[in-house]
């Protein structure tokens, strides 16, 4: 699809369309390649990568909640070396942007990940400082101005590719976190990661998730995500990638109007493996219907009441 209508550029990465599969919901693309043509996607943010392989949390790792799900996967992944050796060559067969989502327990681990991946064919980094499901690191860096400033600044030194910083919504003021990331070298912001939540089995009188808490995603979080996208896009100059509960082109358009230059689709892939493709087509229909020439014509174009 070389449609100029949908082309967008994020921190120097040219995307054929503004729809990216969200990290953690799409693995390394293999499973979804059995359902859809990955060439049609704007990009894929891969499952969060750590320096060493991680087994993740105990099951149950998922619970359904009203219009959403709670997950506590806990960053299960084969480690960065296995990704580079076994998964990246598969992904690079497709003409789509590959974003490496990276996570660690310490700043040094993030730096080492950035260094290792900088010399590969990935297109960008997504700094995961927002996963709520691991004991150490991750969200601990992302929920304070000091934390995000320090890690962004340090990791940026090792990045030879654009650095997208993925924000957690579990903070008092997401604007100040976004501004701190921007001030310390982030090339783009993505948001929101999941909202910390809990679901209880009333018959067992225990949380459903073995990890007790998990991250909420799906349509239930969309209004929060749209509001935060708007808030962040209003205070930073770097591009914003919006996500949270997108199930349709209409949902995605809300994020563009709120100021997002691209969107990520996560949970809805589980429900409908064609979700990303359908959303791309629906965005195109909307732009055509209103005779817009480009997706840029609607980015940040809401008028507040």
């Amino acid at each position, binding site marked *: 699809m070389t449609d100029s209508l949908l082309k967008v550029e994020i921190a120097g990465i040219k995307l054929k369309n503004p729809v990216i599969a969200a990290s*953690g*919901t*799409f*693995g390394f693309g*293999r*499973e*979804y390649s*059995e*359902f*859809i043509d990955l060439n049609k996607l704007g990009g894929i943010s891969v*499952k969060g990568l750590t320096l060493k392989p991680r*087994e*993740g949390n105990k*099951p*149950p*790792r*998922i*619970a*359904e909640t009203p*219009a*959403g*799900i709670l*997950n506590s*996967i806990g960053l*299960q992944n084969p480690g960065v070396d296995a990704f580079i050796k076994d998964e990246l060559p598969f992904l690079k067969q497709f003409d789509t942007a590959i974003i490496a989502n990276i996570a660690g327990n310490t700043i040094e681990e993030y730096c080492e990940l950035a260094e290792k991946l900088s010399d590969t064919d990935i297109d960008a980094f997504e700094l995961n400082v927002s996963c709520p499901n691991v004991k150490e690191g991750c969200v601990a860096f992302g929920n304070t101005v000091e934390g995000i400033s320090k890690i962004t600044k340090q990791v940026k030194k090792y990045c030879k590719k654009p650095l997208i910083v993925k924000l957690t919504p579990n903070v008092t003021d997401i604007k100040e976190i976004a501004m701190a990331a921007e001030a310390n070298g982030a090339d783009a912001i993505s948001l929101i990661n999941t909202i910390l939540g809990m679901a209880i089995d009333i018959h067992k009188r225990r949380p*459903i998730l073995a990890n007790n808490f998990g991250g909420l995603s*799906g*349509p239930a979080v969309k209004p929060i995500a749209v509001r935060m996208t708007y808030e962040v896009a209003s205070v930073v100059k770097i591009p914003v990638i919006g996500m949270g509960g997108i*199930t349709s082109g209409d949902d995605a358009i809300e994020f563009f109007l709120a100021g997002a230059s691209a969107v990520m689709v996560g*949970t809805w*892939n*589980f*429900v*409908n*493996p*064609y979700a990303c493709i359908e959303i791309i087509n629906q965005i195109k229909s909307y732009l055509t219907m209103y005779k817009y020439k480009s997706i840029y014509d609607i980015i940040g174009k809401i008028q507040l009441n």
Partner: protein
Amino acid sequence: MQPVLFEKIVHNEELVPSIFKLVFKSEYIAQNAKPGQFVNIKCCEGINTILRRPISICDVDRDNNYVTIVYQKRGKGTEYLSRAREGDTLNVIGPLGRSFEMSDRYKNIAVVGGGIGIFPLLFLLKESKTMKKTAFIGFRNKENYVLIDEFERYANDLFISTDDGSFGYKGFITDLFENGIANEKFDIIYTCGPEAMMEKVVKASYQAGIPCQVSLEQRMGCGIGACLACVCRIKIISESEKENSNKSWHYKRVCKDGPVFWGHEWYEWGQA
């Protein structure tokens, strides 16, 4: 490419309280399904009960392209599904997952099922071309025993238990199975049902030196192997994998690497 299918429901009937049999027409699933595999159903359109519900395949009619599933109405998703009627559209993905290993080498097979775990075993009995098939199926009581006629049709020997003795043997089905295994040289055992039951089955099978396959269950997300929600612990057996790991097990996906695993791979067995 694997399709997301929108198929016509032919029949949806409550067999006994809360257990439903649903038949839908699907050429793709009927022609491709193997025993042990499941279908993943969006029980309600839109944002209610958003996750698909994995339900094992109970039967297929390849001549007429009918697929039968039997499910328990247990939560909101299956509640919606129970209201579906003939002519309604079913949003379904499948067949998914690893099937039971069936081979001409296995001349004398046994299945051991409990509760709603019996349904994939019925499909296996029907598909198996072997001469000698024995089924052990357990229910809580006679109010919820179902598809007995079908089991009688496809098994040469059928053993039934109920927890309260209201039908068949009073007690656990594993009691009957342990007797059976002492008297009969099975080539393979297939089991599906409550974990405690499957643990006993695996233990008895391996004590008798008979290979055994288990069908595991876990809360699922995507159902196709991407989200890593539905994991179970599987023993690391190959030497090359042992070298790369300091653990004796690793997580495998029930939806993609399973739901069927070899009993000797299943880590939980023997750990309790």
